[in-house]
């Protein structure tokens, strides 16, 4: 399927470049609807890979790229369950999202995340699957999970460890603070910082350049550069599930869901 328009995202191919556009209010939170459509996208990837050289992931929402997992849905669905079923449910969700993230991460396409606004939690993890991150200067990146008593669960820690120095990883994960695009570029996370509103244009210009290269060489280079992290990704799911039923997490999620605090994205 070379084009698709769903409730949470759409995709199309033009001039050898596939574009996946996230578009679900308020800020592309990843819940059951987004996950199901991301799975459709992952299933369509082999076909897109035949007709394309590059993939750009962007957001149509003014608020930003993606605010991460839909915590309200996660809490609402898991809260009524007993601990064993709660873990089974969250493990199933994580296994599904990992399959999508792994398909993106290992796609033979050269992948570019075009970021504006926030890329938080799972949104940051989605960006980390991409080969290049191009961010406008108002973009912010954050892993706030520890504030909820959790760790990132969509493959973020192994990919962050792969791409950045360990002290930066510790800073981002252990403080849960958000960093701006300039800082993200200075630590090696972001490849290009653009003017406000220009990330997608620059991503398209970059993709157009990549399309001039020999496809097989680009694929070989990517395979050589980008290691597969299977064992660490499995371990991340295990740790997330071990933490998930702790009372502190339940309390943290409830506080987030019920919060009227002016900073709900920063629990």
């Amino acid at each position, binding site marked *: 399927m070379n084009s698709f328009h769903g409730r949470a995202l759409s995709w199309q191919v033009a001039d050898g470049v596939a574009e996946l556009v996230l578009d679900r209010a308020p*800020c592309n939170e990843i819940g059951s609807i987004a996950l199901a459509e991301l799975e459709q996208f992952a299933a369509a990837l082999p076909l897109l890979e035949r007709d394309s050289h590059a993939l750009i992931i962007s957001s149509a929402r003014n*608020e*930003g790229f993606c605010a991460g997992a839909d915590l309200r849905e996660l809490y609402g669905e898991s809260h009524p369950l007993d601990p064993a079923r709660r873990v089974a449910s969250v493990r199933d969700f994580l296994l599904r999202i990992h399959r999508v993230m792994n398909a993106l991460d290992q796609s033979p396409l050269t992948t570019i995340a075009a970021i504006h*606004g*926030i890329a938080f939690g799972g949104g940051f993890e989605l960006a980390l699957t991409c080969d290049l991150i191009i961010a406008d*200067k*108002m973009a*912010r990146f*954050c892993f706030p999970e520890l504030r909820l008593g959790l760790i990132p669960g969509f493959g973020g820690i192994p990919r962050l460890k792969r791409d950045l120095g360990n002290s930066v990883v510790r800073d981002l994960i252990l*403080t*849960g*603070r*958000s*960093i*701006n695009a*300039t*800082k993200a570029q200075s630590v090696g996370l972001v490849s290009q910082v653009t003017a406000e509103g220009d990330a997608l244009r620059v991503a398209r210009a970059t993709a157009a350049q990549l399309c001039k290269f020999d496809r097989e060489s680009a694929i070989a280079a990517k395979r050589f550069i980008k290691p597969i992290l299977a064992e660490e990704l499995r371990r991340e799911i295990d740790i997330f599930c071990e933490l998930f039923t702790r009372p502190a997490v339940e309390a943290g999620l409830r506080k987030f869901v019920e919060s009227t*605090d*002016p*900073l*709900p*994205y*920063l629990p």
Partner: protein
Amino acid sequence: MTTLDETTDEVLQLAAQHFNIPREQLYATDDFFKKLGINSLQALDLLTRIEQHFHIELPDYELQGVADFRTLAERIQSRL
């Protein structure tokens, strides 16, 4: 050395410009969430503007509990 008053004034200028509000309507003691009518994402936008303008990093957790421009300016001062 920039004074707290100067920093406060720069923050008020930035907020007025970013949220398109006349500067003279903003005061140092204003609760910026209420006065600007902003949500958490817009507050993060303001934080990014501040970091760019002052060439500093201001961790967002330092803003927890901060609502008025003057206290925000104090947090900025400690990073200059």
